[in-house]
């Protein structure tokens, strides 16, 4: 699969984790592809941390980027039935457990469900934005990412980069498979039939357990 296909494949799988009516916050990049893969009858309430509940993409005529943007700075609108809120209320909803799921990318993840995705000391210091609050507060945290970066493992025994939060991840979805974070470590629950378990383990620094009900990832 080329890069674009991989992104679509991962986003499509992530879309199946979401249920109708879920309040969801999507990180920038790959997670923003997820809405186009939602099964029929599933409508999400997208929350943008800068202050939208039920965010939708406006038409060119409706767009007012001077007055309404999403957390990625793109034109957005609150849908009829949605709301604009301030940052305090928005993060209160996030930390207070009112957001069902957040889906975001990662630089590194590890066996304990630790996440590193906000800083590469000495190289990139963009800041955490809302990510630290989101992964601490959302009921379910899903990481969507390519399994490796330039051939190097990203799923590690222990994160080497500074953490975004400790033990916050529930599920990791890559082009090779789906991995659950359990108290006994990382469990491969689905595998892309293009790969063997050995392939997946070889691309993973952490030790993977195989689920008793391992399924094909599609």
């Amino acid at each position: 699969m080329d890069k674009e296909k991989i992104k679509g494949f991962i986003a499509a799988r992530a879309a199946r984790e979401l249920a109708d009516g879920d309040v969801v916050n999507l990180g920038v990049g790959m997670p923003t592809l997820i809405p186009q893969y939602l099964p029929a009858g599933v409508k999400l309430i997208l929350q943008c941390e800068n202050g939208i509940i039920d965010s939708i993409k406006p038409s060119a005529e409706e767009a007012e980027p001077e007055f309404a943007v999403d957390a990625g700075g793109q034109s957005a609108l609150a849908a009829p039935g949605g709301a604009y809120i301030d940052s305090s209320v928005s993060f209160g909803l996030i930390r207070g457990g009112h957001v069902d799921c957040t889906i975001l990318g990662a630089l590194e993840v590890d066996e304990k469900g630790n996440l590193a995705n906000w800083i590469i000391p000495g190289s990139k210091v963009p800041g955490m934005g809302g990510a630290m609050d989101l992964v601490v507060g959302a009921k379910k945290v899903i990481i969507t990412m390519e399994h490796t970066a330039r051939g190097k493992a990203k799923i590690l025994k222990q994160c080497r980069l500074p953490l975004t939060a400790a033990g916050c991840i529930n599920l990791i979805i890559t082009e090779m498979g789906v991995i659950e974070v359990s108290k006994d470590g990382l469990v491969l629950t689905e595998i892309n039939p293009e790969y063997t378990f050995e392939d997946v383990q070889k691309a993973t620094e952490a030790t993977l357990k195989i689920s008793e009900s391992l399924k094909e990832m599609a």
Partner: protein
Amino acid sequence: MPKWVTAAEAAALIPDGASIMVGGFMGCRSPHRILGELANLGTKNLTLICNDGGMPSGPSGEPLYGVAKLLANRQVKKMYGTHVGLNPEVAKQMNEGFLDVSLVPQGSFVEMIRAYGAGLGGVLTPTGLGTIIEQAAHVHSVVEIDGKKYLLERPLGADFCLICGYKVDKAGNIWYKGTTRNFSEAMATAAATVIVEADNVVELGGIPPEDVVTPGMLVDYVVDGGRQDG
């Protein structure tokens, strides 16, 4: 009642070395007119409290969107923010050792400002536990309450608050359009002097009291931005 000033007069109220908190998200409805005048004045050694460093360009292609004007001009020595990756000037000045940036998780950032404005001694949040944020200067300590750990984040206030409202009435009451209230509602409570740029100035009653987001009693100065679509 607030005083009415031009954007240039508002900018001139801010001395060298002042701390300013500026509303807006990636430049979206930062007080662009006042920031433009502050950049013209070249006021130095500012401490900037703003979510981000603005953007190299705005939605219409205008250069230096939001606080990016002040950063490009090297008017800021110290910054508190949550995400500065979209304005490369920030990383450049950090690497040169010119600009000192304290990164704060966004939910803590707004709540620290709210705490200052509400007379609270700090914010207890689980955000940042187990990360390098525990050692940040804006964190007082890690505390345990009834068996749960939290970071105790310090309140965050400023000398000046610069925000923009879509409708501002003659008493200084503010109504914000779209996503533009973001940090402004908290910031208006947390500075010694609050300056509001009004896209539209409306008569008393032009904002029904039920719809007022920021009460005018908090507002010291208003700049008429001159729009006529409120």
